[in-house]
């Protein structure tokens, strides 16, 4: 897909999103869902960038999100940094962690990367719950109960009044997703795809796998960390429950619906999944069960997601028209 189509799809999605508060702005619950849509869209886009385009099986995106959230909460609670600064610091910290995790992954291939990054995810929970976590201020298994709301230019953005917060999130995350779009369509993105398809050939053409893979780790974890910081100041509380398999798989469903490596798909997938999750909430314990079945069926029946499906419909028509007749 060329970047014009991608930008057009994104403009359409975010344009509709920007209009929605005019109709739904009165119900706080709906606004909450919309804000969560925006936040998860960014996290899913980052995951798509690193897994779909750079071909690195990173399963630590949720861990980076949680690290960003905790870092921002701890910095603003314990060291009394203003939330906006705390979010930036958290992004920087998460990027540093991302580079640390990325370094051993550069020597590894395929499933080993998935293993190391997933192990980061699994290790984070006991660390946050245990004595070490309590010492740095994670609140142990209880979590952090009160986090200061975001304050910018003297205006307080809190979850009590979601419409201004919604627009702030929208602007912020449009910037994030645009950065991802530019990365995908720039020289970088081409280098990623070249590395994914054939690392040896790419290296022979002078593309440094080390440099590009490390940058993509740093960039995606930076943005994911920012999203985590944003999330914690919006929700106002944090617990290690974010690290449950539930959220991890929900993000996976976003990618499955949108299609891995079909970029704006992840954003559409995030919007559909968050809404679906809320709609399925009354089903209680059956909800994750249904999501599990859903992910299996989606991957088996529509492996390229919504974007892939749409592309298929269009290209098959074009193919029929241009196919030579023997």
């Amino acid at each position, binding site marked *: 897909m060329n970047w014009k189509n991608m930008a057009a799809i994104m403009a359409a999605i975010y344009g509709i999103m920007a209009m929605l508060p005019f109709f739904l702005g009165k119900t706080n619950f709906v606004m909450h869902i919309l804000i969560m849509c925006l936040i998860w869209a960014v996290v899913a886009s980052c995951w798509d960038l690193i897994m779909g385009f750079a071909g690195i099986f990173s399963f630590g995106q949720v861990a980076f999100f949680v690290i960003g959230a905790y870092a921002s909460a701890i910095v603003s609670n314990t060291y009394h940094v203003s939330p906006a600064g705390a979010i930036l610091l958290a992004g920087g910290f998460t990027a540093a962690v991302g580079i640390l995790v990325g370094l051993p992954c550069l020597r590894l291939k395929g*499933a080993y990367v998935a293993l190391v990054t997933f192990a980061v995810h699994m290790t984070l929970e*006991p*660390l946050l719950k245990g004595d070490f976590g309590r010492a740095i201020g994670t609140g142990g298994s209880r979590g952090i109960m009160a986090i200061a709301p975001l304050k910018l230019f003297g205006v307080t953005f809190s979850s009590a009044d979601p419409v201004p917060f919604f627009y702030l999130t929208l602007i912020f995350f449009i910037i994030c997703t645009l950065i991802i779009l530019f990365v995908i369509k720039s020289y970088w993105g081409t280098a990623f795809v070249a590395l994914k398809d054939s690392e040896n050939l790419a290296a022979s053409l002078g593309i440094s796998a080390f440099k590009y893979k490390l940058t993509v780790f740093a960039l995606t974890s930076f943005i994911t960390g920012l999203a985590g910081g944003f999330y914690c100041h919006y929700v106002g509380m944090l617990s290690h429950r974010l690290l449950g398999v539930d959220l991890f*798989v929900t993000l996976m469903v976003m990618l499955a619906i949108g299609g891995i490596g079909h970029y704006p798909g992840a954003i559409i997938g995030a919007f559909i999944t968050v809404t679906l999750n809320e709609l399925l909430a009354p089903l209680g314990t059956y909800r994750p069960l249904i999501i599990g079945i859903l992910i*299996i069926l989606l991957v088996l029946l529509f492996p390229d997601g919504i974007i892939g499906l749409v592309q298929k419909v269009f290209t098959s028509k074009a193919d029929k028209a241009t196919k030579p007749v023997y």
Partner: protein
Amino acid sequence: MYLELIDVLISGLTNGSVYALMAAGLTLVYGVSKAFNFAYGSFFSLGGYIAWMLMAVFGTAKGYFFVFILSVPLLLLIGYGVERIIVSPLRKRQDWEVKVMMVTLGLALLLDNSFQVVFGARMKSLPPIMEGALTINDVIVSYQDMAIFILSIASILCFRWMLNNTRLGMAARAVAQNPAGAQIVGIPQNIIFASTFAVSTAMVGVGGILLSQKYFISPADGWDILVKAWVITAFGGMGSIRGSLYAAFILGMLEACVGWLFGMSWILVANFAVLVTTLAIRPQGLFGKWG
């Protein structure tokens, strides 16, 4: 102090032997088909729950004999079916590795939550396989630990014999070494993939039956097991049964010692440290042959 240390060693040995069994299953399936199975841990819980159900139906009096006779074929069948239905259709795609990860992740979520719905969130316990204990001076070794140790080592040896001496085992090794070559000489790849998946499911399921008597069965137990089995496989070397044996005992001991000295919450951290150190210094693992 001295007696506690002995206890820690025994616990490390018993757990290590079961871990070896599970890691061998994982190394088999990854070595042959390169599929990363996220549902591996859920099959561990599945084994425990199947044993629990059989116990509930047949009563505990008949003991574990019936459980093993019935659950192993059942697990083999489940594994074979899972591979044929949800993994093999993805194989022809170029990006099948990610897709297999996603689909097995979905399966793991489905299985875990089915356990929760069917059996409830309360932990289930299995009766010990043998009662009583052997006492030598002050050292007490329970027959249960000994039985677990012997059964898992016997299973590994049986598995190794199968891999080295049967036609199926030789075909599996051929596919692992060179898939294209194996296909040229007429080895049906799809059947080998499905069979290795089935065998690995049975191995982790038996591991689940063995370990569930010492601990408990609960719906979300499998994730720890998945990471542990992977760490052992990576540490021991992919594709090497001997490597995973040594690695499992080393990690079982490490786990028992770390749990005893620092507390249970540090076990995963210690595993992770071992993993990263191994991959940084010797990425092919202790005895790695391929990959």
